[in-house]
Protein backbone atom coordinates (compact mmCIF):
# COMPACT_ATOMS: atom_id res chain seq x y z
CA UNK A 1 0.00 0.00 0.00
CA UNK A 2 2.87 2.36 0.79
CA UNK A 3 6.46 2.34 -0.30
CA UNK A 4 8.99 3.88 2.08
CA UNK A 5 11.62 3.75 -0.63
CA UNK A 6 9.46 5.83 -2.99
CA UNK A 7 8.69 8.29 -0.19
CA UNK A 8 12.34 8.81 0.55
CA UNK A 9 13.17 9.25 -3.11
CA UNK A 10 10.36 11.77 -3.54
CA UNK A 11 11.43 13.70 -0.46
CA UNK A 12 14.98 13.85 -1.74
CA UNK A 13 13.78 14.94 -5.16
CA UNK A 14 11.71 17.74 -3.69
CA UNK A 15 14.65 18.86 -1.57
CA UNK A 16 16.93 19.01 -4.60
CA UNK A 17 14.34 21.08 -6.40
CA UNK A 18 14.25 23.48 -3.51
CA UNK A 19 18.00 23.93 -3.33
CA UNK A 20 18.30 24.54 -7.07
CA UNK A 21 16.17 27.67 -6.82
CA UNK A 22 15.15 28.42 -3.23
CA UNK A 23 13.47 31.77 -3.89
CA UNK A 24 10.23 30.03 -4.81
CA UNK A 25 9.53 29.09 -1.25
CA UNK A 26 8.89 32.76 -0.53
CA UNK A 27 5.47 33.01 -2.19
CA UNK A 28 4.36 30.05 -0.10
CA UNK A 29 5.48 31.27 3.28
CA UNK A 30 5.33 35.02 2.97
CA UNK A 31 1.66 35.14 3.96
CA UNK A 32 2.08 33.21 7.21
CA UNK A 33 5.21 35.21 7.99
CA UNK A 34 3.48 38.57 7.61
CA UNK A 35 0.33 37.31 9.34
CA UNK A 36 2.40 36.22 12.31
CA UNK A 37 4.40 39.40 12.46
CA UNK A 38 1.24 41.51 12.36
CA UNK A 39 -0.15 39.34 15.14
CA UNK A 40 2.96 39.97 17.20
CA UNK A 41 2.39 43.71 16.87
CA UNK A 42 -1.21 43.35 17.96
CA UNK A 43 -0.39 41.05 20.85
CA UNK A 44 2.36 43.29 22.10
CA UNK A 45 -0.31 45.35 23.76
CA UNK A 46 -1.24 42.40 25.94
CA UNK A 47 2.23 40.88 26.12
CA UNK A 48 3.20 37.90 28.24
CA UNK A 49 2.50 34.38 27.03
CA UNK A 50 0.50 35.70 24.13
CA UNK A 51 3.71 36.49 22.27
CA UNK A 52 5.00 32.94 22.47
CA UNK A 53 1.52 31.87 21.56
CA UNK A 54 1.81 33.82 18.33
CA UNK A 55 5.24 32.40 17.57
CA UNK A 56 3.93 28.85 17.91
CA UNK A 57 0.86 29.62 15.87
CA UNK A 58 3.07 31.18 13.23
CA UNK A 59 5.03 27.98 12.89
CA UNK A 60 1.86 26.03 12.26
CA UNK A 61 0.64 28.61 9.75
CA UNK A 62 3.94 28.39 7.90
CA UNK A 63 3.80 24.64 7.60
CA UNK A 64 0.23 24.92 6.50
CA UNK A 65 0.96 27.66 3.96
CA UNK A 66 3.70 25.72 2.28
CA UNK A 67 1.70 22.52 2.41
CA UNK A 68 -1.26 24.01 0.65
CA UNK A 69 0.75 25.82 -2.00
CA UNK A 70 3.32 23.20 -2.76
CA UNK A 71 1.61 19.94 -1.96
CA UNK A 72 -1.66 20.57 -3.68
CA UNK A 73 0.51 21.29 -6.69
CA UNK A 74 2.73 18.24 -6.34
CA UNK A 75 1.12 16.18 -9.07
CA UNK A 76 0.43 19.26 -11.11
CA UNK A 77 4.15 19.57 -11.42
CA UNK A 78 4.43 16.12 -12.91
CA UNK A 79 1.43 16.69 -15.07
CA UNK A 80 3.00 19.83 -16.49
CA UNK A 81 6.37 18.20 -16.77
CA UNK A 82 5.06 15.09 -18.48
CA UNK A 83 6.48 12.87 -15.75
CA UNK A 84 3.18 11.77 -14.29
CA UNK A 85 2.95 8.80 -16.66
CA UNK A 86 6.54 7.85 -16.00
CA UNK A 87 5.66 7.59 -12.32
CA UNK A 88 2.33 5.91 -12.89
CA UNK A 89 3.90 3.20 -14.98
CA UNK A 90 6.15 2.18 -12.08
CA UNK A 91 4.89 -0.10 -9.33
CA UNK A 92 5.42 2.66 -6.72
CA UNK A 93 2.10 3.98 -5.39
CA UNK A 94 1.55 7.56 -6.44
CA UNK A 95 0.37 8.34 -2.93
CA UNK A 96 3.80 7.44 -1.54
CA UNK A 97 5.51 9.78 -3.96
CA UNK A 98 3.16 12.60 -3.05
CA UNK A 99 3.53 11.88 0.65
CA UNK A 100 7.31 12.11 0.47
CA UNK A 101 7.06 15.49 -1.17
CA UNK A 102 4.42 16.74 1.24
CA UNK A 103 6.66 15.78 4.12
CA UNK A 104 9.41 17.95 2.70
CA UNK A 105 7.00 20.80 2.04
CA UNK A 106 5.67 20.76 5.58
CA UNK A 107 9.23 20.64 6.84
CA UNK A 108 10.16 23.60 4.68
CA UNK A 109 7.24 25.48 6.19
CA UNK A 110 9.28 25.41 9.38
CA UNK A 111 11.47 28.01 7.71
CA UNK A 112 8.64 30.35 8.52
CA UNK A 113 8.73 29.25 12.13
CA UNK A 114 12.43 30.00 12.12
CA UNK A 115 11.90 33.43 10.57
CA UNK A 116 9.15 34.19 13.05
CA UNK A 117 11.34 32.99 15.89
CA UNK A 118 14.10 35.36 14.82
CA UNK A 119 11.72 38.29 14.52
CA UNK A 120 10.20 37.48 17.89
CA UNK A 121 13.56 37.13 19.59
CA UNK A 122 15.38 40.08 18.10
CA UNK A 123 12.71 42.56 17.06
CA UNK A 124 10.32 41.98 19.94
CA UNK A 125 12.76 40.65 22.51
CA UNK A 126 10.49 37.76 23.37
CA UNK A 127 11.89 35.11 25.63
CA UNK A 128 11.29 32.01 23.57
CA UNK A 129 11.71 29.16 26.00
CA UNK A 130 9.42 26.18 25.98
CA UNK A 131 8.25 24.47 29.09
CA UNK A 132 8.72 20.91 27.86
CA UNK A 133 11.26 20.75 25.02
CA UNK A 134 10.87 17.03 24.36
CA UNK A 135 7.09 17.26 24.31
CA UNK A 136 7.44 20.24 22.04
CA UNK A 137 9.56 18.34 19.54
CA UNK A 138 7.22 15.37 19.51
CA UNK A 139 4.24 17.63 19.01
CA UNK A 140 6.08 19.44 16.23
CA UNK A 141 6.84 16.16 14.47
CA UNK A 142 3.21 15.08 14.83
CA UNK A 143 1.96 18.39 13.43
CA UNK A 144 4.36 18.16 10.53
CA UNK A 145 3.18 14.67 9.75
CA UNK A 146 -0.45 15.65 10.01
CA UNK A 147 0.00 18.55 7.60
CA UNK A 148 1.82 16.34 5.13
CA UNK A 149 -1.15 13.97 5.22
CA UNK A 150 -3.56 16.82 4.67
CA UNK A 151 -1.44 17.94 1.72
CA UNK A 152 -1.89 14.48 0.28
CA UNK A 153 -5.65 14.77 0.44
CA UNK A 154 -5.50 17.93 -1.64
CA UNK A 155 -2.81 16.58 -3.91
CA UNK A 156 -4.92 13.58 -4.85
CA UNK A 157 -7.42 15.69 -6.72
CA UNK A 158 -4.74 16.87 -9.07
CA UNK A 159 -4.70 13.41 -10.61
CA UNK A 160 -8.03 14.29 -12.14
CA UNK A 161 -7.95 18.02 -12.76
CA UNK A 162 -5.54 20.86 -12.70
CA UNK A 163 -8.18 23.25 -11.48
CA UNK A 164 -8.11 21.49 -8.12
CA UNK A 165 -5.17 23.32 -6.66
CA UNK A 166 -6.74 26.66 -7.50
CA UNK A 167 -9.70 25.61 -5.40
CA UNK A 168 -7.67 24.20 -2.55
CA UNK A 169 -5.47 27.21 -2.26
CA UNK A 170 -8.53 29.12 -1.32
CA UNK A 171 -8.49 27.02 1.84
CA UNK A 172 -5.27 28.66 3.00
CA UNK A 173 -6.88 31.47 4.98
CA UNK A 174 -9.97 29.59 6.12
CA UNK A 175 -7.65 27.12 7.79
CA UNK A 176 -5.53 29.90 9.27
CA UNK A 177 -8.75 31.04 10.86
CA UNK A 178 -10.24 27.68 11.78
CA UNK A 179 -7.12 26.01 13.18
CA UNK A 180 -7.14 28.58 15.95
CA UNK A 181 -3.36 28.70 15.76
CA UNK A 182 -3.33 32.40 16.58
CA UNK A 183 -6.21 32.66 19.02
CA UNK A 184 -8.12 30.29 21.26
CA UNK A 185 -10.85 28.25 19.61
CA UNK A 186 -13.39 29.85 21.90
CA UNK A 187 -13.02 33.13 20.00
CA UNK A 188 -14.48 31.44 16.94
CA UNK A 189 -18.24 31.32 16.42
CA UNK A 190 -20.11 28.21 17.56
CA UNK A 191 -21.00 27.04 14.02
CA UNK A 192 -17.42 26.93 12.80
CA UNK A 193 -16.02 24.82 15.63
CA UNK A 194 -16.79 21.41 14.17
CA UNK A 195 -14.61 22.36 11.21
CA UNK A 196 -11.82 23.29 13.57
CA UNK A 197 -12.12 20.05 15.47
CA UNK A 198 -11.86 18.03 12.27
CA UNK A 199 -8.47 19.53 11.41
CA UNK A 200 -5.32 17.80 12.64
CA UNK A 201 -3.60 21.21 12.55
CA UNK A 202 -5.93 22.38 15.30
CA UNK A 203 -4.84 19.61 17.66
CA UNK A 204 -1.19 19.84 16.63
CA UNK A 205 -1.20 23.54 17.46
CA UNK A 206 -2.91 22.75 20.74
CA UNK A 207 -0.31 20.13 21.69
CA UNK A 208 2.49 22.55 20.81
CA UNK A 209 1.02 25.20 23.05
CA UNK A 210 0.42 22.84 25.94
CA UNK A 211 4.04 21.70 25.72
CA UNK A 212 5.35 25.26 25.57
CA UNK A 213 3.17 27.55 27.65
CA UNK A 214 3.00 26.99 31.38
CA UNK A 215 -0.54 26.41 32.55
CA UNK A 216 -2.05 26.47 29.08
CA UNK A 217 -4.84 23.97 28.47
CA UNK A 218 -8.17 25.70 27.90
CA UNK A 219 -9.93 22.56 26.66
CA UNK A 220 -8.61 20.39 29.50
CA UNK A 221 -7.15 17.82 27.12
CA UNK A 222 -3.70 17.48 28.59
CA UNK A 223 -0.66 17.04 26.38
CA UNK A 224 -1.37 13.41 25.63
CA UNK A 225 -4.98 14.19 24.86
CA UNK A 226 -4.06 16.82 22.28
CA UNK A 227 -1.37 14.60 20.80
CA UNK A 228 -3.79 11.69 20.64
CA UNK A 229 -6.35 13.80 18.81
CA UNK A 230 -3.65 14.92 16.38
CA UNK A 231 -2.80 11.30 15.68
CA UNK A 232 -6.44 10.30 15.37
CA UNK A 233 -7.41 13.06 12.94
CA UNK A 234 -4.21 12.43 10.98
CA UNK A 235 -5.04 8.77 10.66
CA UNK A 236 -8.51 9.58 9.40
CA UNK A 237 -7.14 11.92 6.77
CA UNK A 238 -4.51 9.36 5.80
CA UNK A 239 -7.20 6.78 5.11
CA UNK A 240 -9.24 9.34 3.23
CA UNK A 241 -6.26 10.29 1.10
CA UNK A 242 -5.35 6.70 0.28
CA UNK A 243 -8.91 6.00 -0.71
CA UNK A 244 -8.99 9.17 -2.79
CA UNK A 245 -5.82 8.23 -4.60
CA UNK A 246 -7.05 4.81 -5.56
CA UNK A 247 -10.44 6.14 -6.55
CA UNK A 248 -9.14 9.08 -8.55
CA UNK A 249 -6.35 7.11 -10.20
CA UNK A 250 -8.98 4.67 -11.34
CA UNK A 251 -11.07 7.46 -12.77
CA UNK A 252 -8.13 9.04 -14.54
CA UNK A 253 -7.36 5.69 -16.11
CA UNK A 254 -10.87 5.48 -17.48
CA UNK A 255 -11.07 9.08 -18.65
CA UNK A 256 -7.54 9.30 -19.98
CA UNK A 257 -6.87 12.54 -18.14
CA UNK A 258 -3.44 11.65 -16.82
CA UNK A 259 -1.42 13.57 -19.33
CA UNK A 260 -3.60 16.44 -20.30
CA UNK A 261 -2.41 19.64 -18.78
Amino acid at each position, binding site marked *: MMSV*RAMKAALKQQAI*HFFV*DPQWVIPSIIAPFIFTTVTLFLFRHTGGDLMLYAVLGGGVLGMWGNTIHSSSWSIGYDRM*NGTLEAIMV*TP*APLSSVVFGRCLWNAFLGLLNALAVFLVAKFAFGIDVTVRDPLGFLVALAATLLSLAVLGMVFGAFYVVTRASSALFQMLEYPIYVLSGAMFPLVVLPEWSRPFSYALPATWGAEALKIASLPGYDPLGLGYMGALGLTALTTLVFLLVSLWLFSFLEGRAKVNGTLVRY
Partner: protein
Amino acid sequence: MSDGEAVIEAEGLTKVYPAAFRLFGDGGREKLAVDNVTFNVRRGEIFGLLGPNGAGKTTTVKMLSTLLIPTSGKATVLGLDVVRDAGKLRSRINLVSGGERGLYFRLTGRQNLEFFSDMYHVPREEKRRRITNLLEIVGLTEAADVRVEEYSRGMKQRLHLARGLVNEPEVLFLDEPTLGLDPEISRETRALIRHLSEEGVTILLTTHYMFEADELCDRLAIISEGRIKALGSPYSMKEAVRNDSIIEVEARELGEAQRRELADLPGVSAVSVEHLEGRQRARIVVANAPGLIPTVAAMLESRRVISIRVDQPTLEDAYIKLVNGR
Protein backbone atom coordinates in the same frame (compact mmCIF):
# COMPACT_ATOMS: atom_id res chain seq x y z
CA MET B 1 11.97 -15.58 -33.92
CA SER B 2 8.69 -15.71 -35.77
CA ASP B 3 7.43 -18.65 -33.75
CA GLY B 4 8.23 -17.28 -30.27
CA GLU B 5 5.59 -17.26 -27.55
CA ALA B 6 3.26 -14.27 -27.46
CA VAL B 7 4.16 -11.85 -24.67
CA ILE B 8 1.61 -9.22 -25.57
CA GLU B 9 -1.88 -10.32 -26.45
CA ALA B 10 -4.60 -7.83 -27.28
CA GLU B 11 -8.01 -9.13 -28.03
CA GLY B 12 -10.87 -6.92 -29.17
CA LEU B 13 -9.29 -4.03 -27.34
CA THR B 14 -11.55 -0.97 -27.41
CA LYS B 15 -11.30 2.42 -25.79
CA VAL B 16 -14.03 5.01 -25.68
CA TYR B 17 -13.07 8.20 -23.87
CA PRO B 18 -16.05 9.42 -21.90
CA ALA B 19 -17.19 13.01 -22.37
CA ALA B 20 -15.07 15.14 -20.08
CA PHE B 21 -16.61 16.64 -16.99
CA ARG B 22 -15.98 20.35 -16.73
CA LEU B 23 -17.01 22.78 -14.06
CA PHE B 24 -17.24 25.56 -16.61
CA GLY B 25 -17.87 25.16 -20.31
CA ASP B 26 -18.63 22.21 -22.47
CA GLY B 27 -16.67 19.02 -21.97
CA GLY B 28 -17.25 17.71 -25.47
CA ARG B 29 -18.59 14.31 -26.39
CA GLU B 30 -17.31 10.77 -26.05
CA LYS B 31 -14.68 9.65 -28.44
CA LEU B 32 -13.95 6.22 -29.83
CA ALA B 33 -10.16 6.08 -29.91
CA VAL B 34 -9.43 2.38 -30.35
CA ASP B 35 -11.94 0.12 -31.99
CA ASN B 36 -11.77 -3.63 -31.47
CA VAL B 37 -8.06 -4.12 -31.96
CA THR B 38 -6.58 -7.61 -31.90
CA PHE B 39 -2.92 -8.53 -32.27
CA ASN B 40 -0.09 -10.19 -30.46
CA VAL B 41 3.61 -9.57 -30.06
CA ARG B 42 6.12 -12.40 -29.70
CA ARG B 43 9.03 -12.54 -27.33
CA GLY B 44 12.10 -10.67 -28.56
CA GLU B 45 10.25 -9.03 -31.40
CA ILE B 46 10.17 -5.37 -32.37
CA PHE B 47 6.55 -4.77 -33.19
CA GLY B 48 5.39 -1.50 -34.70
CA LEU B 49 2.08 0.30 -34.54
CA LEU B 50 2.12 2.52 -37.57
CA GLY B 51 -0.45 5.14 -38.30
CA PRO B 52 -1.22 8.82 -38.72
CA ASN B 53 -1.67 11.15 -35.75
CA GLY B 54 -4.82 10.44 -33.79
CA ALA B 55 -5.08 6.90 -35.12
CA GLY B 56 -5.21 5.36 -31.64
CA LYS B 57 -1.60 4.20 -31.36
CA THR B 58 -0.87 6.00 -28.12
CA THR B 59 -4.16 4.95 -26.59
CA THR B 60 -3.35 1.34 -27.40
CA VAL B 61 0.09 1.61 -25.84
CA LYS B 62 -1.35 3.22 -22.73
CA MET B 63 -3.86 0.43 -22.28
CA LEU B 64 -1.11 -2.16 -22.65
CA SER B 65 1.17 -0.34 -20.22
CA THR B 66 -1.52 -0.18 -17.48
CA LEU B 67 -2.09 3.57 -17.74
CA LEU B 68 -5.53 3.37 -19.22
CA ILE B 69 -8.39 1.00 -18.61
CA PRO B 70 -9.92 -0.47 -21.78
CA THR B 71 -13.62 0.07 -22.31
CA SER B 72 -13.91 -3.49 -23.56
CA GLY B 73 -11.74 -6.32 -24.78
CA LYS B 74 -8.84 -7.92 -23.01
CA ALA B 75 -5.10 -7.56 -22.99
CA THR B 76 -2.35 -9.49 -21.30
CA VAL B 77 1.32 -8.69 -21.16
CA LEU B 78 3.71 -11.43 -20.01
CA GLY B 79 0.62 -13.43 -19.19
CA LEU B 80 -0.62 -10.78 -16.77
CA ASP B 81 -3.91 -8.98 -17.26
CA VAL B 82 -3.23 -5.27 -17.80
CA VAL B 83 -6.09 -4.21 -15.58
CA ARG B 84 -6.30 -6.88 -12.90
CA ASP B 85 -2.59 -7.53 -12.47
CA ALA B 86 -1.39 -3.98 -13.20
CA GLY B 87 0.64 -3.83 -9.99
CA LYS B 88 2.57 -7.02 -10.72
CA LEU B 89 3.01 -6.14 -14.35
CA ARG B 90 4.46 -2.70 -13.81
CA SER B 91 7.75 -3.90 -12.40
CA ARG B 92 8.37 -5.96 -15.54
CA ILE B 93 7.53 -3.40 -18.23
CA ASN B 94 8.37 0.20 -18.97
CA LEU B 95 7.17 2.99 -21.20
CA VAL B 96 9.10 5.73 -22.94
CA SER B 97 7.26 8.53 -24.68
CA GLY B 98 8.89 10.71 -27.28
CA GLY B 99 9.21 14.45 -27.08
CA GLU B 100 11.00 16.55 -24.57
CA ARG B 101 8.63 16.11 -21.69
CA GLY B 102 8.87 13.42 -19.08
CA LEU B 103 12.06 14.20 -17.19
CA TYR B 104 12.79 16.25 -14.11
CA PHE B 105 14.59 19.21 -15.55
CA ARG B 106 16.06 20.52 -12.37
CA LEU B 107 17.64 17.19 -11.55
CA THR B 108 20.75 15.81 -13.18
CA GLY B 109 20.59 12.84 -15.50
CA ARG B 110 21.87 10.59 -12.76
CA GLN B 111 19.42 11.95 -10.20
CA ASN B 112 16.58 11.26 -12.62
CA LEU B 113 17.67 7.67 -13.00
CA GLU B 114 18.15 7.29 -9.26
CA PHE B 115 14.67 8.59 -8.60
CA PHE B 116 13.08 6.16 -11.00
CA SER B 117 15.22 3.26 -9.77
CA ASP B 118 13.85 3.94 -6.32
CA MET B 119 10.34 3.79 -7.72
CA TYR B 120 11.15 0.23 -8.80
CA HIS B 121 12.88 -0.72 -5.57
CA VAL B 122 16.05 -1.61 -7.42
CA PRO B 123 18.40 -2.92 -4.68
CA ARG B 124 20.89 -0.25 -3.66
CA GLU B 125 24.19 -1.83 -4.79
CA GLU B 126 22.52 -2.94 -7.97
CA LYS B 127 21.15 0.56 -8.53
CA ARG B 128 24.56 2.17 -8.66
CA ARG B 129 25.96 -0.46 -11.00
CA ARG B 130 22.94 -0.40 -13.27
CA ILE B 131 22.82 3.38 -13.59
CA THR B 132 26.51 3.58 -14.46
CA ASN B 133 25.94 0.93 -17.05
CA LEU B 134 22.85 2.60 -18.52
CA LEU B 135 24.56 5.97 -18.75
CA GLU B 136 27.34 4.23 -20.62
CA ILE B 137 24.94 2.54 -23.05
CA VAL B 138 23.14 5.78 -23.90
CA GLY B 139 26.38 7.75 -24.01
CA LEU B 140 25.62 10.11 -21.16
CA THR B 141 28.41 9.17 -18.78
CA GLU B 142 30.05 12.56 -19.07
CA ALA B 143 26.81 14.49 -18.78
CA ALA B 144 25.52 12.35 -15.92
CA ASP B 145 25.90 15.07 -13.31
CA VAL B 146 24.67 17.94 -15.43
CA ARG B 147 21.13 19.15 -14.95
CA VAL B 148 18.72 17.94 -17.60
CA GLU B 149 17.68 21.50 -18.46
CA GLU B 150 21.13 21.86 -19.99
CA TYR B 151 20.73 18.79 -22.18
CA SER B 152 20.17 18.89 -25.91
CA ARG B 153 17.13 17.17 -27.34
CA GLY B 154 19.10 14.13 -28.31
CA MET B 155 20.56 13.80 -24.84
CA LYS B 156 17.13 14.07 -23.30
CA GLN B 157 15.83 11.39 -25.60
CA ARG B 158 18.68 9.09 -24.68
CA LEU B 159 18.06 9.75 -21.01
CA HIS B 160 14.42 8.89 -21.62
CA LEU B 161 15.47 5.53 -22.94
CA ALA B 162 17.80 4.97 -20.00
CA ARG B 163 14.92 5.86 -17.70
CA GLY B 164 12.83 3.24 -19.43
CA LEU B 165 15.46 0.64 -18.69
CA VAL B 166 16.12 1.19 -14.98
CA ASN B 167 13.96 -1.78 -14.06
CA GLU B 168 15.42 -4.00 -16.80
CA PRO B 169 11.99 -4.45 -18.37
CA GLU B 170 11.12 -7.56 -20.31
CA VAL B 171 8.73 -5.54 -22.45
CA LEU B 172 9.41 -1.97 -23.44
CA PHE B 173 6.77 0.32 -24.92
CA LEU B 174 8.12 3.16 -27.00
CA ASP B 175 5.62 5.81 -27.98
CA GLU B 176 6.95 7.82 -30.95
CA PRO B 177 10.53 7.49 -29.75
CA THR B 178 12.00 9.70 -32.48
CA LEU B 179 9.34 12.41 -32.43
CA GLY B 180 10.85 15.81 -33.11
CA LEU B 181 14.42 14.56 -33.28
CA ASP B 182 16.73 15.56 -36.08
CA PRO B 183 17.75 12.83 -38.55
CA GLU B 184 21.07 12.04 -36.99
CA ILE B 185 19.71 11.70 -33.46
CA SER B 186 16.82 9.65 -34.79
CA ARG B 187 19.35 7.32 -36.33
CA GLU B 188 21.21 7.00 -33.02
CA THR B 189 17.95 6.31 -31.25
CA ARG B 190 17.02 3.60 -33.73
CA ALA B 191 20.42 2.00 -33.31
CA LEU B 192 19.85 1.97 -29.58
CA ILE B 193 16.44 0.37 -30.01
CA ARG B 194 17.96 -2.36 -32.18
CA HIS B 195 20.64 -2.90 -29.58
CA LEU B 196 17.98 -3.39 -26.91
CA SER B 197 16.15 -5.83 -29.06
CA GLU B 198 19.34 -7.83 -29.54
CA GLU B 199 19.65 -7.93 -25.75
CA GLY B 200 16.32 -9.74 -25.72
CA VAL B 201 13.90 -6.97 -24.78
CA THR B 202 10.53 -7.24 -26.46
CA ILE B 203 9.66 -3.88 -27.95
CA LEU B 204 6.37 -2.40 -29.01
CA LEU B 205 6.83 0.94 -30.68
CA THR B 206 4.51 3.41 -32.29
CA THR B 207 5.57 5.66 -35.08
CA HIS B 208 4.18 7.55 -37.98
CA TYR B 209 7.43 7.32 -39.90
CA MET B 210 7.27 4.66 -42.53
CA PHE B 211 10.97 4.14 -42.95
CA GLU B 212 11.36 3.78 -39.21
CA ALA B 213 8.87 0.96 -39.13
CA ASP B 214 10.45 -0.56 -42.22
CA GLU B 215 13.90 -0.36 -40.74
CA LEU B 216 13.18 -1.50 -37.19
CA CYS B 217 10.14 -3.69 -37.03
CA ASP B 218 9.94 -7.42 -37.40
CA ARG B 219 6.21 -7.06 -37.74
CA LEU B 220 3.83 -4.17 -37.72
CA ALA B 221 0.22 -3.24 -37.62
CA ILE B 222 -1.09 -0.34 -39.62
CA ILE B 223 -3.68 1.43 -37.57
CA SER B 224 -6.03 4.16 -38.67
CA GLU B 225 -9.14 5.60 -37.06
CA GLY B 226 -8.73 3.17 -34.20
CA ARG B 227 -8.77 0.05 -36.36
CA ILE B 228 -6.05 -2.24 -37.61
CA LYS B 229 -5.98 -1.99 -41.38
CA ALA B 230 -3.19 -4.46 -41.97
CA LEU B 231 -0.87 -6.62 -39.95
CA GLY B 232 2.29 -8.45 -40.91
CA SER B 233 5.96 -8.00 -41.71
CA PRO B 234 7.07 -4.91 -43.59
CA TYR B 235 7.76 -7.28 -46.48
CA SER B 236 4.24 -8.66 -46.49
CA MET B 237 2.88 -5.14 -46.33
CA LYS B 238 4.73 -4.35 -49.49
CA GLU B 239 2.98 -7.38 -50.94
CA ALA B 240 -0.22 -5.36 -50.81
CA VAL B 241 1.16 -3.16 -53.54
CA ARG B 242 3.30 -5.73 -55.30
CA ASN B 243 0.98 -5.92 -58.24
CA ASP B 244 0.64 -2.16 -58.34
CA SER B 245 2.90 0.38 -59.83
CA ILE B 246 3.35 4.01 -59.14
CA ILE B 247 3.01 7.13 -61.22
CA GLU B 248 4.95 9.91 -59.62
CA VAL B 249 4.01 13.40 -60.74
CA GLU B 250 5.76 16.58 -59.72
CA ALA B 251 3.96 19.82 -60.46
CA ARG B 252 3.63 23.33 -59.14
CA GLU B 253 -0.13 23.57 -58.69
CA LEU B 254 -1.40 20.31 -57.33
CA GLY B 255 -4.09 20.56 -54.68
CA GLU B 256 -6.69 18.53 -52.88
CA ALA B 257 -9.10 18.87 -55.82
CA GLN B 258 -6.60 17.22 -58.17
CA ARG B 259 -5.86 14.52 -55.63
CA ARG B 260 -9.52 13.62 -55.53
CA GLU B 261 -9.83 13.66 -59.31
CA LEU B 262 -6.82 11.39 -59.66
CA ALA B 263 -8.13 9.02 -57.01
CA ASP B 264 -11.34 8.63 -59.02
CA LEU B 265 -9.55 7.44 -62.14
CA PRO B 266 -10.17 3.80 -63.04
CA GLY B 267 -7.61 1.36 -61.59
CA VAL B 268 -6.23 3.88 -59.06
CA SER B 269 -6.26 2.55 -55.49
CA ALA B 270 -4.62 5.46 -53.63
CA VAL B 271 -3.13 8.89 -54.20
CA SER B 272 -0.87 10.80 -51.85
CA VAL B 273 0.26 14.37 -52.32
CA GLU B 274 3.38 15.58 -50.61
CA HIS B 275 4.08 19.29 -50.45
CA LEU B 276 7.65 20.24 -51.18
CA GLU B 277 9.12 23.68 -51.50
CA GLY B 278 7.32 25.41 -54.36
CA ARG B 279 6.06 22.16 -55.82
CA GLN B 280 4.05 19.10 -54.99
CA ARG B 281 4.70 15.44 -55.53
CA ALA B 282 1.79 13.08 -56.12
CA ARG B 283 2.18 9.33 -55.95
CA ILE B 284 -0.59 7.41 -57.66
CA VAL B 285 -0.93 3.74 -56.80
CA VAL B 286 -2.36 2.03 -59.85
CA ALA B 287 -2.55 -1.41 -61.41
CA ASN B 288 -1.09 -0.39 -64.76
CA ALA B 289 1.02 2.73 -64.60
CA PRO B 290 2.25 3.12 -68.17
CA GLY B 291 -1.29 2.76 -69.48
CA LEU B 292 -2.60 5.55 -67.28
CA ILE B 293 0.13 8.10 -67.92
CA PRO B 294 -1.55 9.77 -70.91
CA THR B 295 -4.77 10.23 -68.96
CA VAL B 296 -2.90 11.69 -65.99
CA ALA B 297 -0.86 13.99 -68.21
CA ALA B 298 -3.99 15.27 -69.91
CA MET B 299 -5.78 15.82 -66.64
CA LEU B 300 -2.94 17.81 -65.10
CA GLU B 301 -2.09 19.76 -68.21
CA SER B 302 -2.87 23.12 -66.65
CA ARG B 303 -1.16 22.42 -63.30
CA ARG B 304 2.39 23.28 -64.38
CA VAL B 305 3.69 19.74 -64.38
CA ILE B 306 7.45 19.35 -63.93
CA SER B 307 7.83 15.63 -64.41
CA ILE B 308 5.90 12.38 -64.67
CA ARG B 309 7.56 9.02 -64.17
CA VAL B 310 6.82 5.44 -63.22
CA ASP B 311 8.23 4.13 -59.93
CA GLN B 312 8.36 0.95 -57.83
CA PRO B 313 5.98 0.80 -54.86
CA THR B 314 7.45 1.34 -51.38
CA LEU B 315 6.14 0.58 -47.91
CA GLU B 316 4.87 4.12 -47.85
CA ASP B 317 2.69 3.48 -50.86
CA ALA B 318 1.41 0.33 -49.23
CA TYR B 319 0.62 2.33 -46.14
CA ILE B 320 -1.21 5.03 -48.09
CA LYS B 321 -3.14 2.38 -49.92
CA LEU B 322 -4.04 0.55 -46.71
CA VAL B 323 -4.99 3.64 -44.76
CA ASN B 324 -6.69 5.78 -47.38
CA GLY B 325 -7.13 3.57 -50.36
CA ARG B 326 -9.80 1.26 -51.62
